[in-house]
């Protein structure tokens, strides 16, 4: 039991420890860049906090929704509707991608398929508020064509993920 707790603790802090060592080593190589990285990290963190709060509240709210209701709209057997909901969720989700992983895990526990998770994550590439900027840099025609292909390819990826992950649903 104690061994398992130690292993969990090791796993939990493996990445933070590796990042700390990396920062320490690189500090001796280029201290200015490390200071800038820390300042930039702080500015990102300040932007991430509201998203984290929103996701905690979302996860809390999700606990009140019966699994059956969730499965009806986004479950494995929800058909095209479920795929479209996952795609739309990805498009309108705001903030950094890693903040959304815990919520997606909660949704998976409620019935979201692994493929639908992949569709959500892929459609984050379609940033609705940033479409005017994409048009500004690359033109309207390019933006429309790229957006359509990304949207379509996300379903191809989702289907492939569902096939690949079929045997390890309970990962």
């Amino acid at each position, binding site marked *: 039991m104690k061994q398992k707790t130690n292993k969990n603790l090791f796993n939990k802090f493996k990445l933070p420890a590796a990042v700390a060592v990396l920062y320490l080593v690189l500090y001796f190589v280029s201290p200015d860049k490390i200071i800038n990285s820390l300042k930039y990290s702080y500015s990102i963190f300040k932007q991430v906090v509201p998203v984290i709060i929103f996701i905690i509240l979302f996860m809390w709210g999700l606990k009140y929704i019966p699994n059956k209701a969730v499965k009806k709209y986004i479950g494995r057997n929800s058909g095209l509707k479920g795929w479209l909901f996952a795609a739309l969720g990805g498009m309108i989700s705001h903030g950094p991608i*890693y903040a959304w992983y815990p919520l997606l895990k909660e949704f998976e526990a409620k019935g979201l398929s692994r493929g639908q*998770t*992949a569709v959500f994550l892929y459609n984050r590439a379609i940033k609705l508020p940033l479409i005017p900027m994409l048009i500004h840099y690359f033109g309207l025609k390019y933006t429309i*064509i790229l957006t359509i292909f990304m949207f379509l390819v996300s379903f191809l990826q989702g289907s492939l993920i569902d096939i690949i*992950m079929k045997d390890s649903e309970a*990962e």
Partner: protein
Amino acid sequence: MNIKKKNHLELFLKSFKSMLSLLPLMISVILLIALVKEFITFKVISSFFQNNIMIDTLIGALSGSILAGNSLNSYVIGGELLTGGVSLFAVTAFIVTWVTVGFVQAPAEAAILGTKFTIWRNVLSFVLSMLVSVLTVFVLGLV
């Protein structure tokens, strides 16, 4: 009533604790993103391209996979690369993988959503980014 209130609080704390336990992982990812941004500058990225459409598309997809952050930055860098003569195939692959492939975020994704899922999702996103790139530029040439 008190029992209900207690239940609400318990459910809230459960969500809060589950997010809190992932905070070290998220902070690590943030620190990695900042590190990559600081060390892999626009100058470094643009030096990789070789005026070969196929190799450049691969380099574009690889660069986008390693870099992370606001998508707007990918548009700005992509626009600069295009102005600098890099092909639209490469720039498109770069923009698509910027969001769909997360090399830096992979440890967090694997810890939360599973290693197998993370590997397959990122590998497929990488390969499909090149498909999206070819299709987009090809259709753009037709219309």
